[in-house]
């Protein structure tokens, strides 16, 4: 096993992590302060206009019964929230979102981590494998999911055809008709989308000081111990980044589900994104969809806050 030597320009991570000074004398001058204001102002304006205004509209609309033209709105108070929260289809979609998110996290922290370590260890055809694993993260997921959805066809789909061709026809499934098989299909799709976690890990593991690893090797640690006892804990900030990005990404996984299973069978693989999309298709349902969006937003924010707290503690 070889380790990439740490660049002199990169501060080491782990025990000797360089943290920004807290509370000490600030070297920020008035001039640099104005530069900062100059750079931040456009962002703040865009953020205020785009996001805050949008959130404001979303909040107002969520208390109305109104259509896409936003005309003839009828104030319904909190009725939309009550109806959304009590909808079994929404509850199922929210549960699926969390389930798929947890699965994504588990796959990223295990398979993603392991693959990244293998790639970082200088395995042959490294670039080829990088391409294989990163490609799904670089191409539009909708395209990939559409192709995958076509592969799931029971009679002529590539997956069942392939299984039959190699004598494993007994494993052929009604992928979109059987709930268990549909979950497996979604799991495969999610697993294939672990390119970004691999990238995070391979980037950060390159910053781990080679001397630390060399010391461990000299002390008699085997490869498994180096991974488990040293590298995995050393990359804990990366784990947190991966968890957050994967978790929040799961709330935006509309394209994965919509273009592959389309929520089948019977809506059992629907997630909040597909639920909200379907809700917007009816007449005067924009308020209802807005209420559903806000509930999802609150759940996602809760996850973000938990992550921030955990991250602060980890630092």
């Amino acid at each position, binding site marked *: 096993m070889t380790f990439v030597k740490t660049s002199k320009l990169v501060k080491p991570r782990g025990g000797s992590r360089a943290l920004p000074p807290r509370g000490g004398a600030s070297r920020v001058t008035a001039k640099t302060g104005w530069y900062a204001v100059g750079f931040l102002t456009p962002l703040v304006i865009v953020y205020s206009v785009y996001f805050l205004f949008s959130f404001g509209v979303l909040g107002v609309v969520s208390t109305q019964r109104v259509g896409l*033209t936003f005309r003839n709105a009828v104030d319904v108070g909190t*009725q939309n929230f009550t*109806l959304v929260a009590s909808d079994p289809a929404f509850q199922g979609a929210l549960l699926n979102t969390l389930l798929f998110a947890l699965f994504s996290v588990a796959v990223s922290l295990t398979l993603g981590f392991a693959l990244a370590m293998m790639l970082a260890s200088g395995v042959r055809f490294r670039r080829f494998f990088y391409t294989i694993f990163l490609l799904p993260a670089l191409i539009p997921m909708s395209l990939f999911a559409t192709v995958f959805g076509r592969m799931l066809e029971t*009679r002529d789909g590539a997956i069942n055809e392939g299984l039959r061709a190699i004598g494993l026809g007994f494993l052929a499934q*009604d992928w979109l008709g059987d709930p268990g098989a549909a979950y497996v299909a979604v799991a495969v799709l999610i697993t294939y989308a672990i390119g970004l976690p691999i990238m995070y890990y391979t980037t950060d593991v390159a910053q781990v000081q080679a001397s630390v690893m060399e010391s461990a090797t000299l002390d008699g640690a085997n490869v498994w111990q180096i991974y488990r006892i040293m590298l995995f804990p050393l990359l804990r900030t990366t784990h947190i980044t991966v968890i957050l990005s994967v978790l929040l990404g799961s709330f935006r996984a509309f394209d994965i589900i919509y273009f592959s299973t389309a929520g*089948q*069978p*019977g809506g059992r693989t629907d997630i909040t994104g597909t639920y909200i999309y379907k809700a917007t*298709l009816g007449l005067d349902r924009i308020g209802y969809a807005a209420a559903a969006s806000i509930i999802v937003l609150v759940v996602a924010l809760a996850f973000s806050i938990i992550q921030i707290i955990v991250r602060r503690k980890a630092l």
Partner: protein
Amino acid sequence: MQMKKLGLTVGALVAATALLSGCAQAPGSSDGKTEIVYWTWFPPQTTIEAAISAFEAENPDITVTLKTFEGADYQKQLPLALSGGQQVDVAGVQISAMTNSVKDYLDPAEDWAADFLPNINTTMVQQTKDIASDGELYSVPMGSIGSPVMYYNATILDELGLSVPETAADWKVAVDAISAAMPEVTPVVFLGDVYWQEEMLFAIAEQTSPGLSDDIIGGDGSWEQKGLVDGLEAYKSLFDDGIVGTDVLSLTGTRPNELFGQGLAGFYIDGSWNNSLLSASYRADNNLAVTDVGATTIPLIDGGNPSVRALAEGGLAIPTASEHKEEAAKFIEFMLSTAGADVWAKDLILVPSLTGYELSDSVLQSDASVAGYTSATAAISNPTSKRDSQQDFLNTVEGNAILDVLRGTTTAAEAAAKMQSEWTSGRYPHGSDK
């Protein structure tokens, strides 16, 4: 100095952007011509372009700028464009799905269509009025569509000596014969998509309970009524009796159409908007392997009479904000005239609304296609219900409940009870709640 240059550059960019966006927002007169903007999702772009060319040849002082959309996307794009003040002079309106979401931005059709409205089929005009919550006419329908229609590969039926099935028993005989002789062919295909299940359910249920869809979706009828439960069981029996395989339910999007076009399906059930399959020139232009196609209604499952839900479709409307209403009305009048219909009606997607319009003999060539078109047109002209849906309910509850019955996950009675429970939950305003 540098700041001044930067300021000038930014100013010039802003001015250019404003100028360009202004041009995009308000096409008007250029070179003495009036430009009108036409938004639609139908018919296929090549057909509309041919119709526009014919119109522009007759009206050299008007140019038509076309913007086309995919059907479901259009349901969102048009309301947003109209509410955002974007210039649209002629708007295609999906009569069932869009009338009420855009009517506030449209001029009543009686204001601009008085000259040619008497030439339009009165039933289709009335259907269009009935869809609007205030009973006003906001668009003039180009024609009518109905579903389901069952297309069949006439060559396969001929080769196997099979007749066009009229009952489930006939259908089973045909399916068994196709399966035995042509294992690569799927006997019956249709969409497994959620939204399509309503079309299938009501077509089968209305064979013995005509008007069921109007009663439930358009009125205050219960989903638990006997006719609906019987319909669910009859639909399920197609799978139990081996006429349709559950693998068909995994076909989505354009797959059933592709399989039928490739000659890999015996029967293909879809809407009359696929009547183009009956045209030999359409099949040749699109390199379809299927050589002869006929059409009929779904065979009778438990007796009764053939049923189709149909509705006026392809509404043409003029937005209130249009600055070229006279030219827009002229374009719509052309599209609904014999000259316009001659261009787009040969696609067979709509049964034209122009009273007395007859399709050219050259469009349909085989006996099967002529008989099929006649059969489909007759059924659409005498529908058992309006082709109307509560889309959010259909996508979230109804379609999934039907699929669960077909897959044996739940019983017809349980599915009906679930639909009724959700229907009355307050989440899906309908009937007198609207």
